[in-house]
């Protein structure tokens, strides 16, 4: 079937446009240090500068020597769940930082709080399983789930991000 000249022109334009999209997308990805987000390096979390307080606090906290951001803030043992949590947080963080439309002070969401709690118990279960036999997340400090600290970190507030000022 002979190709009509107008279709060939459209195909040419489309391939140029797709090329431009791929090129600018690739450039932006590299400029925004996109590959760093696949690493385990806490420095990636301060790429966006907003987490500077949390990052600095972590450097002064007791868990500094044994955990990175991912150890506490990503689920472990289920790769699909872990990737989903990372992607969802990545989406909300990028959206917030780009559009500057997030509420201060930054608060952990209930879903992420559950991930965090599971990670406390993942390492400390031996010492705490009798304390937590009936769960620690069952009694949130705020029934509306607007407050962000549940379970272990309700009291052990400074183990991750250092002492409060």
């Amino acid at each position: 079937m002979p190709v009509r000249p107008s279709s060939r022109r459209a195909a040419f334009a489309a391939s140029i446009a797709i090329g431009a999209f791929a090129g600018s997308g690739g450039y932006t990805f590299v400029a925004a240090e996109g590959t760093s987000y696949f690493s385990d390096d806490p420095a990636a979390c301060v790429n966006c500068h907003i987490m500077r307080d949390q990052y600095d606090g972590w450097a002064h906290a007791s868990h500094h020597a044994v955990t990175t951001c991912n150890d506490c803030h990503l689920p472990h043992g289920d790769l699909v769940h872990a990737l989903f949590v990372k992607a969802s947080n990545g989406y909300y963080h990028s959206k917030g930082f780009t559009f500057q439309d997030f509420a201060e002070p930054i608060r952990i969401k209930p879903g992420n709080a559950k991930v965090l709690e599971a990670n406390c118990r993942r390492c400390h279960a031996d010492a705490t399983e009798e304390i937590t036999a009936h769960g620690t997340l069952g009694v949130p400090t705020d029934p509306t789930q607007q407050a962000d600290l549940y379970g272990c970190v309700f009291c052990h507030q400074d183990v991750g991000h250092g002492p409060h000022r």
Partner: protein
Amino acid sequence: MYMVVVALLAAGGTVLMMMLNANVATRKAEALQTSFKLVDLDERTVDPAQWGKNFPRQYDGYLRTAEPYSTKYGGAGSDGMPKSRLEEDPRLVTIFDGYAFALDFNQRQGHAHMLDDQRTTRRVTERPQTGACVHCHASNTVAYREAGLAHGAPGTLADPFASATAQAQLMTGFEAVGKLPYAEASQLVAHPVACIDCHDPQNMALRVTKPGFLRGIDALARSDEPVPHLPSLGKWRQGDRARPYDANLDASRQELRSMVCGQCHVEYYCGPKTTLFFPWSKGLKMEQIEASYDAMEFPDGQRFTDWQHGRTGAQLLKAQHPEFEMWSQGIHARSGVSCADCHMPYKREGAIKISDHHVRSPLLNVARACQTCHRFPETELLERVAVIQDRTKALMDRAEDALVALIGDVEQAKKGGADDARLAPVFALHRKAQWRVDFVNAENSMGFHAPQEAARILGEAIDYARQGQLAVRDLK
């Protein structure tokens, strides 16, 4: 046709991608350099607009202190004219009888208004006041140093603030300006509190510059009063004390985040009879300040007093605005929380973090001021504050009632022929009750800065006022 749609979608996607790229570049640039030096600042640059060219974000906040605001117990409201506290609470007219505060006493406004408010209050326009008043209502570092140079202090205005010559200029000028009539001193200053009063123009480090504070904090350091919330005083006390305590050398940045405010938000004497001073030589508590006043005489040999009450004739004390002192007795100070943590909390603009220079009540900014530490909903936090302030107000109402009742009883007794000699013990009780009521009333937090301390002071006020009434009754 299909290919045209693909081309258009890809083109639109590219536009969005380029926008995202520009946004990423902006955020990166913001983080790379947080300030741009457009003008040179030095020890002669008083005008905040010049500093604002280098620090526009902070300057924007500073300008916003001009905005009207009100909270339940503070703020001048948003109707243009400041609210009169005398109309709000006519008992104050009786309490301050014979004193300028019975003429004109308004709710506070933001920092931007401090100089205009002082120049136009009837306390200044209708009663003679001294140049000491500009110590806290104007940016005066340069004005003092210029006056010091005019009075023979060594060096030049370009000397670094910490140098011995600059300090000599500052103190000489402070003494000289304080002796001028207010109208003359007011000509020497042009701005309300400004950048240079709290920041080093070279590196923006926090610093204290007001002579009253420099002397007052040294006096406090030399006292035996424990000040665990100001640890650098403790360290200085353990040293050889070879030089005075110098906040600009000894204090931590976190301490300075309160001390810069304590340059003015304090109790002080600024009347005509002696040089302005902060009464901290025995400590910061209400009765320690009272004791240092009671222990002193004016240079003319008379008893230290702010005014003689118009109806009773008692020689009384007026509290200024002892926020620094009240905060010092509270849980926040003891926990290492500075004034700036709540009144100038950190905020983000893009990738930049700055302290909010729109100094104001934390109640107008709960998310940043309170919730960074207190992880409870905003409504709950506001309710907690309201409980503290409502309780303080209820107790203060009782204290004012008691004081007004005492004043009435003394008036009656005087009409009945009681002379000042017989009334002397009553006058002493009037002085104590007045000082205590006013220490809480003049303090700008309605008890919040130290709830239990405020209640303790008001409890004593009520007791002394009622004791005074009993003493009047027993005169017969």
